[in-house]
């Protein structure tokens, strides 16, 4: 029996900054909780194709597994947790850049 489809988001690295970004309904964001949650497999495949075509904006787009908590996507694997939050050795990188007041839209 084929494995049931689990919720996903489209994620990639930003071409210029290199940092982690997530696809939204109409663009990209650096915050996982703003990402578009994809619950339909055909829809997810289509959204991934659309992302990979944006060769002058994003690099290495793929579908990442997530869970939905309180209506927001959250990581299910520790790798995605670090991608979403930044390095864990000390506070720097994304966790500092995305602190309240530091956010800039990725578009």
């Amino acid at each position, binding site marked *: 029996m084929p494995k049931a489809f689990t919720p996903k988001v489209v994620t990639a*690295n930003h*071409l*210029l*900054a*290199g*940092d*982690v970004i997530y696809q939204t309904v109409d663009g990209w964001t650096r915050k996982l909780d703003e990402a578009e949650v994809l619950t339909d497999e055909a829809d997810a495949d289509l959204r991934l194709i659309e992302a990979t075509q944006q*060769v*002058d904006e994003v*690099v*290495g787009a793929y579908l990442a597994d997530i869970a939905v908590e309180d209506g927001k996507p959250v990581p*299910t*694997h*520790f*790798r995605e947790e*670090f*991608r979403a939050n*930044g*390095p*864990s*050795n*000390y506070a*720097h*990188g*994304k966790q500092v850049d995305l602190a309240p007041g530091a956010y800039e839209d990725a578009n």
Partner: protein
Amino acid sequence: MYSYSEFDTAFLAERNRQFRAQVERRISGALTEDEFKPLRLMNGLYLQLHAYMLRVAIPYGTLSSAKMRKLAEIAERWDNGYGHFTTRQNIQYNWPELKDVPDMLDALAEVGMHAIQTSGNTIRNVTADHFAGAAADEIADPRPVAELLRQWSTDHPEFQFMPRKFKIAITGSPNDRAVTKAHDIGLRMLERDGAKGFEVIVGGGLGRTPMIGKVINDFLPEADLLPYLEAIVSVWNQIGRRDNKYKARIKITVHEHGIDEIRRLVEERFVETRKAFSGVDQQMLREIEGHFAPPAFVQADTAPYTQALQHYPAFRAWTDTNVTPHRDADHAIVTISLKKHGATPGDASAAQMRLIASLAETYGYDEIRISHEQNVILPHVHKASLPSIYSALKAEGLATANIGLISDIIACPGMDYCALATARSIPIAQEIATAFDDLKREHDIGQLKIKISGCINACGHHHVGHIGILGLDRSGVENYQITLGGDHTETATVGDRVGPGFSAEEVVPAIERIVDTYLDLRTDEDEAFIDTYRRTGLAPFKAALYPETKVAAE
């Protein structure tokens, strides 16, 4: 120190100009990522988990104060204010933006540095004993030969698209600090009947299939070095496995064909390559040797040093661990620890880099080395200067007295930065260092090398750690395998796996049980961990780590 010739400078300027144009074409969309990726990798630019990463070569780990200051400037101007020193004696910047990288490369070129061949299936940065030119036990300074190898291998037309990467290390001392037996080619400088030569070791390597290198030539005359190495790399380039990247390294080629057959093929090829070297390479080597002439060591009273030893216990403790005998009795080799307890192993801030540059300039004949153990060396320091150096280092958080001790841990970047990692390395290192520092036990424990890798590729050299830790992903959870008894020196050994892995939370308690077992078993304080392990074997450590298994077996 080697200074770039007009040729080196022109070559680098042209390469940087080409890469700047390639970056512009990538940003404009004229190049796809698939087209751009091999070009950026040829220039040391990776795309990692959170950002681009620029790996800059530090040939044979040697820097001047001007170079170190430039590394600090780059960290501040285009990165996050720090750099990460690696097990190939390189520096990595973890946060550059793509558009800035050509400017970073131009800045490096101003001081004769680059990022060429720090990635890709090429001959990588040649590494050397970090005490080269200073060590009391040295036969000869290996750096002129390492520089010759750098010039020979850089942009070598035959060796740009090889089956896999290729790593060379060289030592001029019988006490191997350069891990020569775990390299594709390891070179040990020898003297026989007054003639200079090399023991050539081939087919060592770590990664998924760890192998200790085998001697292919026990005494290669100095003048034959380049044609002989060219023969080795050429034979492997032809018969090395290109069908499977995990079987592509020369260690597998040597394993599959046998060292005798590889030696026969190399000798056969050497007949051809030898003809192509007319002796110009030896003239170049003589010229290069001129760049590495030892400094004129000052003569001065060492009383300030001996007085400080008597009056300042913290200074004495630091000299006990971080200072090594120099070939000149009034001088010393200083190892600056980048392993402050709880900090990220190998990281240095721009301010710390500038301080090190300044100390090298003031007290150290303008010489700096980076070790594969992710520390910084001042190779030539008059003993009278040691108290001043210690005070300056202390003020900048660089005077941790732990070289060779349990908190002097090699750790790869792991999943905090690296796209290939399967688990984190750095936080494990931080936790171990902090736990043993809290209990003030590490000086009692003595010499003990822990090496941690966050994936099977083994950048953290875990196979050759006295205690090796390998982070893996087990069904979506970080899991750590422990090996014991590894050794990176002239008696190189791959460690023994103790048994099932441990969760991240269980690693520190497991290390504590290993250390407690060692302390119970050692004959006296002079028996180091590795010696006790060799005497007792794995059994008592395994029993301590898996008591439930012992109970089940009884």
